[in-house]
């Protein structure tokens, strides 16, 4: 069984699994409530940090991280997926399963780096940012959906993938598309009990 022939079939079944879990085994929440809740958090953070948007970005990121490290267990409990062998399959799982199950969107995977260790997700629609219009002073600095970076970073770290995750562009800032970059730093080693090495 060669790797190349198994890939499309695997990707297809991931898509199917994601759709099935979203349809049958995911409790839904009202979209407006969800969007407004997140919006209230971001705008409150902007007030609390006196419009220091760099701080707001960091705060959103760390909130996302705290979500991600727990969300991964939820994700694995639903999907029972094993660890991915490479970043290509990781990207498929993130896009077709994770985003599908939790946000009901399937971002496009593009812009692979030459070494296949970094890729971009294009978010055609972003349920976090419906209705949002950034104020003028936030346009250049605030990454409104930065919580997503934190979530991905936390979740991937828990499956031993040390990654950097950041936004490259956002339609809210007037960019043509919303692009999120994921870059693998290294695969963390599983711990072994003392005395085994």
């Amino acid at each position, binding site marked *: 069984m060669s790797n190349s022939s198994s890939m499309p079939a695997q990707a297809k079944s991931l898509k199917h699994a994601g759709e099935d879990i979203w349809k049958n085994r995911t409790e839904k929440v009202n979209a407006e409530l969800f*969007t407004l809740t997140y919006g209230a958090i971001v705008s409150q953070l*902007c007030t609390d940090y006196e419009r220091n948007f760099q701080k707001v970005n960091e705060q959103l990121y760390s909130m996302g991280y705290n979500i991600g490290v727990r969300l991964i267990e939820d994700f694995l409990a639903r999907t029972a997926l094993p660890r991915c062998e490479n970043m290509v399959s990781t990207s498929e799982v993130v896009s077709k399963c994770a985003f599908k199950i939790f946000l009901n969107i399937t971002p496009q995977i593009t812009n692979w780096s030459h070494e296949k260790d970094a890729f971009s997700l294009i978010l055609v629609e972003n349920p976090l940012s*419906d*209705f*949002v*219009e950034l104020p003028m002073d936030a346009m250049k600095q605030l990454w409104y959906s930065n919580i997503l970076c934190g979530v991905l970073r936390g979740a991937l770290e828990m499956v031993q993938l040390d990654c950097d995750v950041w936004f490259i562009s956002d339609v809210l800032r007037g960019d043509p598309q919303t692009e999120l970059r994921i870059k693998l730093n290294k695969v963390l080693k599983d711990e072994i009990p003392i005395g085994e090495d």
Partner: protein
Amino acid sequence: MPQYFAIIGKRDNPVYEAEFTAQQGQQGQVQQGFPQNLKELNPFILHASLDIIEDLQWKTNPNTQSGSNSGGGGGFLRSRNVANVDNCYLCKVDHFYGLAVTAYLTYGGMKFVMIHGNMNNGDVQIDDNSVRAFYQEVHELYIKTLMNPFYKINDPITSPAFDSRVRALARKYLNK
């Protein structure tokens, strides 16, 4: 004919204002705006009619004053039994030397008011159906603005997107 449109907040504070003129930018047409002296007067005319709107708010049949009873039945304006937004539109509520004032009241108490100017000193004819459609679509835009987490209720609306959409609606419904 030109119009002056404003959204008035719950504390009678202006939230948004705009002036629409006929067929902007078309060749051979003079910009049909309000005369300068009237321009300055417009906000005062609008504010004068706010009292009437607040009175009408609790009247059983708000449409009787304007004379054109357009389907609005009995019952309080804010009746719980009427689920449609039709009774938000109050038709013509006031007039001022040949200018007509129409109004629309959202369920949250925001007042949408508009002065309809006249071109040739004749009486202003108001096409209730298109004016109502205009108000209803602006109402939808307003709700979307309200959903923006960075917008606080009763703050002035500064979004250029909102402004251009409202102007597009004005071209569509008022100054065909």
